[in-house]
């Protein structure tokens, strides 16, 4: 812990809350705008300007909503764990808040993946849900998110909640690969990953363009939502601190008689 003191000071220089406010304020509109435009483009290409799948028909178009969501679900959990680690090591409130605010967004993407996935599944498999490896692992990922958020909610003391939740996020992150492997082991019905493969994508390029448009749109949307949420949280905390400041007069030790002011 000794060397942390050094790192800590330097980190504060780079990311002190005040400067964050400024940066966030400037970045937010661009992120939001980019998300909307790219999303619109992606949807246009996806829905009107790309071929229907020869076996899945038009339902394949759900993929443009579904796949990026699924990826974001994984991405958000990683970044949540990363900022948790930062917050735990350097005790920096911004990192804590980033982790805290990432969780609901990531959970949202996860839910979207589950929803679109099962919407996709109905025509494909004739069932809303199938205990397929990827579906199941995403479902479990969803529970990981819920646990993290529930822990934050349950602990009134923000600093303590941050530390404990960080520990959970890190432990969970270490376990994600194990869970994914175990579930794949448990069942390998779902089609193999065909985008991330050594021999390159097998999906038609006219499907890839909208896919990647959508993915960048999701990413920007994540950034925009995160910045907004973080700013609200920081403001809420400052307000709380101000309220406390005039309400709370800490005690101190004095010899009898003397009254400390």
């Amino acid at each position, binding site marked *: 812990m000794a060397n942390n003191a050094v790192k800590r000071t330097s980190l504060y220089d780079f990311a002190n809350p005040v400067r964050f406010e400024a940066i966030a304020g400037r970045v937010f509109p661009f992120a939001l705008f980019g998300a909307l435009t790219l999303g619109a483009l992606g949807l246009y290409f996806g829905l009107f300007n790309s071929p229907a799948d020869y076996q899945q028909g038009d339902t394949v178009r759900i993929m443009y909503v579904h796949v990026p969501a699924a990826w974001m679900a994984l991405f958000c959990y990683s970044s949540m764990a990363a900022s948790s680690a930062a917050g735990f090591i350097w005790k920096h409130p911004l990192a804590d808040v980033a982790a805290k605010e990432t969780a609901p967004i990531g959970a949202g993407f996860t839910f979207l993946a589950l929803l679109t996935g099962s919407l996709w599944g109905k025509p494909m498999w004739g069932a809303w849900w199938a205990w397929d490896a990827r579906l199941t692992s995403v479902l479990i990922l969803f529970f990981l998110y819920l646990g993290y958020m529930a822990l934050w909610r349950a602990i009134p003391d923000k*600093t303590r909640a941050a530390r404990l939740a960080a520990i959970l996020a890190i432990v969970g992150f270490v376990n994600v690969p194990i869970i994914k492997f175990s579930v794949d082991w448990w069942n390998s019905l779902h089609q193999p990953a065909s985008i991330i493969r050594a021999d390159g994508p097998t999906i038609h390029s006219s499907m890839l363009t909208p896919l990647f448009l959508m993915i960048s749109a999701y990413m920007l949307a994540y950034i925009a939502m995160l910045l907004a949420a973080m700013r609200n949280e920081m403001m809420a905390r400052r307000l709380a601190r101000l309220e406390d400041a005039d309400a709370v007069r*800490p005690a101190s030790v004095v*010899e009898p008689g003397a009254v400390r002011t």
Partner: protein
Amino acid sequence: MPDVAPFSAGLTARNLAVARGGRIIVDGVDLDLAPGEAIVLRGPNGAGKTTLLRALAGLLAPAAGAIQATGERVFCGVRSATKPALTVDENLRFWARLYQSGEIESARNRLGLDDYAKRPAGHLSTGFLRRLGLARLLLSSRPLWFVDEPTSGLDKDASAIFEGIIADHRKTGGAAIIATHETLNAPGARQLELRNAEAAA
């Protein structure tokens, strides 16, 4: 842990601040405790006595400032740290093993618990449960004691016993900080007062 020779035991706190529930409760505390010394900590309800004691005992991380302790510390709070399902002796034995020290019989006898040795702690009356909790101080054979409201619920005899225990502890070079609202007969003990209790939000 190596048992630090009691004589050298002491504690210093500088500009100490302690938070609880994310709120600074105690602030700017400077405090020195020398071997053989005792401090009686007083102050209104909610002033932060318990909070300060726990911090000094090393159970709460300070929000600011520094604490330096030479010698091992033991905290004895209002919660007796006993298991109701275990008998008095079983509770004592467990502590003796944890601290790797102390004779159960002498501690039990000193606090007048002999009649209850084989009784489950859950059947003890308020005062006798408190006595059992205090017995842990003796078992720990550590030099630095932090005791919260030790005599609440104790009858006169038991309070006298406790005062005697503190006196003996100081004779051997031990030191203690005791938070209490009641009159405590501790000759030559320094009286400290916690003031400016927070008005809650």
